[in-house]
């Protein structure tokens, strides 16, 4: 059988192609373009191949920022995920109290990120901030603008305050979806609270927890606004993460070539991580239909 091929169908795809081109392909290609050239001015540009890539991969400051980034993400994940589960489990399953708590927990998620930074910048100030003053009045030598450990502590606390709610909301919805009969069966089988968590809740929360970890991992790897407002990357470079280092390179020092190479590496790194993680959790998704 011969089918008449109607090429006009391609016209239907044009709007989408246009949108994708404008939003993703063209900006990305611009960056690729920058990353392989050394640009002096409009008429003076030299093709440099992979030179910028080699330079940034060997950059010790970037290595330091990367390690800080990994440490930060590991820290916030290690706190936010278990804390979120604990809070969600402690909440009543239904009723007006549960609704009230859900609204309460959603508040930090609704605050613009730079406002979160500003809130904590003031909240943690040792001279006028409530948290900072409380800590100093306890006799602690606390100053997040001067001491790197204090700066880290404040940043992690801020991120936990900002994002644990997301984990709580996700886990709460996951817990609600578990039929009552599972708990009843486990009770009859003689399971204790820990075993119920281990054998009923945890397996059935797998998908939801996977999504929570994925979202928090992506976001924490790209964190920019809050530390920019709170510490500005300091004291010294102690809270300079990848995105801040990138911004400083691109906008501050106007090193467009290395910054473009850096952006691409950064982008591919997060993409790979998320893809790896996604493929890890997606087979679990198929199993939990009933």
């Amino acid at each position: 059988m011969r089918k008449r091929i109607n090429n006009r169908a391609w016209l239907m795809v044009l709007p989408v192609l246009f949108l994708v081109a404008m939003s993703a392909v063209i900006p990305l290609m611009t960056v690729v373009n920058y990353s392989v050239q050394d640009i002096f001015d409009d008429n003076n540009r030299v093709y440099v191949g992979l030179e910028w890539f080699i330079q940034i991969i060997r950059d010790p400051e970037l290595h330091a920022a990367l390690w800080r980034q990994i440490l930060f993400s590991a820290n916030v994940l290690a706190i936010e995920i278990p804390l979120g589960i604990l809070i969600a489990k402690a909440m009543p399953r239904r009723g007006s109290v549960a609704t009230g708590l859900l609204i309460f927990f959603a508040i930090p998620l609704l605050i613009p990120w730079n406002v979160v930074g500003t809130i904590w910048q003031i909240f943690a100030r040792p001279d006028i901030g409530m948290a900072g003053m409380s800590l100093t009045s306890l006799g602690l030598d606390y100053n997040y603008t001067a001491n790197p450990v204090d700066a880290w502590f404040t940043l992690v606390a801020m991120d936990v305050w900002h994002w644990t709610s997301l984990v709580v909301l996700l886990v709460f919805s996951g817990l609600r979806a578990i039929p009552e009969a599972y708990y009843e069966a486990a009770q009859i089988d003689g399971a204790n609270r820990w075993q119920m968590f281990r054998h009923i809740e945890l397996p059935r929360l797998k998908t939801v927890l996977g999504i929570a970890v994925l979202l928090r991992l992506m976001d924490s790897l790209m964190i920019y606004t809050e530390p920019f407002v709170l510490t500005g990357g300091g004291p010294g470079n102690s809270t300079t993460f990848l995105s801040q280092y990138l911004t400083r390179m691109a906008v501050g020092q106007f090193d467009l070539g290395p910054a473009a190479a850096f952006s691409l590496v950064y982008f591919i790194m997060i993409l790979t991580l998320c893809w790896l993680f996604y493929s890890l959790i997606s087979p679990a998704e198929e199993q939990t239909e009933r």
Partner: protein
Amino acid sequence: MAHVSLNNISHAYNANTDSETQVLTDISLDIPHGSAHALLGASGTGKTTLLKIISGLLIPTEGDLLVDGRRVNTDSPRERNIAQVFQFPVLYEHISVFENLAFPLRNRKVPLTEIHTRVKQTAELLEIDNLLSGKTTGLSIFDKQKVSLGRALVRNDVSAILLDEPLTAVEPSAKWRLRQKLKELQQELSLTMIYVTHDQLEAMTFAEQISVMHEGRIIQTASPRELVEKPQHEHVGFFIGMPGMNFLPTDSTACLSPPKGATKAGFRPDQAFVSTKQGHNSLQVAVIDQQALSTHLGESWGLLTCKYQDIEIRTRQHLNLNVGSTAWLHIDNPHFFRNGWRMTGQAEVTQGNA
């Protein structure tokens, strides 16, 4: 296995508050060791609540629950040694079938070697020994339900096995096989089984004794045969049998000579027939439908629907009348009911006359 007794058990949700709802009223039951007992009733009659009380998931607001004479009202499900199979298979999906069966034993700190032998035995009994190493996710509902039954059977100290509509979710073609298996195991191992269902056929084929529940009460506990022949309550008559009992108010059927105080006469479809001949105590009816179910010696047999005044009546008989014609309904020894309950003394007398 054990003897389970319920003494005057009542239960209300949200007891002693404004939203108190009474769901069970004055339930008394005696389920001897090794018997198959069914709780039969429409949905919302409190069957599942009663099961939860027996398994220990709920503590009754009133009354006593005795297992082998020991009061267990406040014992936790774990202390009670009662197993339950749910409407849909409840399995631990992340572990193998073997681990699913071993789960109740591990929780009770049974030694490893014993766990192995008991799981193997149970799996052989249920014919799932070839599935032991696999996960539960790919199994059919029939096999899944067998695994959940296995979690009950694997505990050899279990006092009773409660089954909450265990066939509901099972594929229609496998329902019969699972029911057979249940009955077989119950008899072979002389298990005490309490089976909740809304399906009279399931209850009648499974249980020696059936308790019919209605609005939170047990209105009759009897053998399947007794439920058909001597329904204690109008509702039992109506609920049991396919189709159920016909009822006529006694004030319009004086010819049946109802005893004093009777409000309704009830008779099963096979206790009456419609013919063109007017008999001694017959009622004039209009034939409105005939539904053939079988043939016997060249004649159609089945269900005949007729109307007496405004009441539809069904009889099981041979279908030789024309739809739309007028005929006569002959009733053979009806039961009489007063305020819902059957009047016993009188019924025995009429049966003697027949």
